């Protein structure tokens, strides 16, 4: 586990200069996700039109991993359909559990920068917080939205 490699530029950049950390007045979904034991706390906001994520943002605070991971996620899901976003979420969570192929890591783009979390059980929750919240938004609203 090489931490200095781990806190790489992708991660630190998304942490200190997040693109998508802001409010979204016209969001169609908003959900709070927390890791109570860590104190990580984000509110994910999505603007979904016809099952396509037109915009994504988050507010909140927490460790660099939770914040950067949420920011990277927002970046990735904007413009994607609900199904594609959920497929990425599933893939990301699998990566964190240590069972993805190299092709899949490539597909995860910048989120692949978090793959070493699979060796850091204590940080798993931080990395997946954003993605879990995304999944929850769509699960909770499945009925309403179909």
């Amino acid at each position: 586990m090489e931490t200095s490699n781990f806190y790489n530029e992708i991660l630190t950049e998304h942490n200190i200069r997040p693109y998508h950390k802001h409010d979204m007045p016209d969001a169609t979904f908003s959900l709070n996700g927390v890791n109570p034991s860590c104190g990580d706390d984000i509110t994910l906001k999505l603007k979904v039109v016809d099952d396509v994520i037109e915009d994504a943002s988050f507010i909140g605070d927490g460790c660099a991993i939770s914040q950067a991971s949420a920011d990277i996620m927002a970046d990735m899901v904007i413009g994607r359909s609900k199904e594609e976003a959920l497929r990425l979420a599933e893939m990301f969570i699998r990566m964190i559990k240590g069972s993805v192929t190299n092709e899949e890591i490539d597909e995860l783009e910048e989120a692949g920068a978090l793959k070493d979390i699979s060796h850091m059980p204590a940080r798993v929750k931080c990395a997946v917080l954003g993605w879990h919240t995304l999944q929850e938004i769509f699960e909770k609203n499945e009925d309403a939205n179909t």
Partner: protein
Amino acid sequence: MSINVNISHREDFPLLRDSNIVYLDNAATSQKPDCVIEAVEEFYHKHNANPLRGFYELAMLATEQLENSRTTVKEFINAKFEEEVIFTKGTTESINLIANSYGMNFLGEGDEILISIMEHHCNILPWQFVASKTGAVLKYLECDMDGLISDTAIEEAITDKTKIVAITQLSNVLGRENPIARITKTAHEHGAIVVMDAAQSVVHVKIDVQALDVDFMAFSGHKIMSPMGIGILYGKKELLNKMPPFLRGGEMIESVTRTDAVFAQLPYKFEAGTDNASGAVGLMAAINYINSIGMEYMHERTLMLTKMCFDAICKIPHIHIIGAKDSNNHNGIISFTIDNVHPHDVSQILSESNVCVRAGHHCAQPLCDFLGFKSCTRASFMFYNTQEDIDTFIKSLSGIRKMMGYGD
């Protein structure tokens, strides 16, 4: 006392001796010296039997070991009677025992339980529970931003309604020693009893339960170099005698019928089930080790290390130490925050240099809320730490903001 920083006790601790670990999470748990590990081993090699039960020689040896440990603890905390020393699995069980056996039975509607704002969760939740069940009111005794509980605060908080004051002798976040004797005096004037959490203090302060005049006291073995799974409850005999048992089962009875039971005398009334004799033996070895090194020497050394580290941290920009401005009020515990870097990231980056520190709310969320942060990083020292440990820690700490992408 003059302390030579170059003398190292690291050699007594196999985990430290055989690695380059910089262990600064001593407030969470301590490392164990060879003599403690060997004492446990020897028990299983030579004395292992179910204590308090048998008439054969091996069982008597096991019993003797258990009772010798009780005597050792009695002397260590200066209790008046052996039977005031009860073996539990740790501080948490000890305090739950007091809350369930004393709190639930001697408190009622309108009575007040006073705890300090800096308590560990295990000295908060049991009292929240007692309050919710008995109708008693849970109140908080506050400190200032330096962690000081003032005489005025004590005088105002303790009233004739107060029935229990439960307070830590040393905060696991602030490291500051609380004025226990002062609190006991006021509490007793108002007819309240005092429960002292000694989990953190026991390794730093020479505890004298009679001089402090506390009614109950609890600590865990694992924080004073003894094995896990053993802890102590001290209680004044007259209080313990009037309390019902907490856990119920073997060993704590005189006789049992289908419908009823007569309970055993102290201390056994509170020691249901097979005692952790090997844990007790380890605890005895740890206390003997402490006595051989010298409590005062250990503490002086810890204070010296604390000061070195404190002074060095003060020189790093963007780092804020929590609590007292004088390192002598930190007793081996330095908690801090770094601007814009989350403690979990701090801890992980330090871990890269083999530095072990703890990050989070340290089981003291009400204190964190009160002081205005969600979590912090804590470095905690014992006498076996070295100047080198501190150098490595400070070096790694200094580079964190940069590593996280900040200009300074």
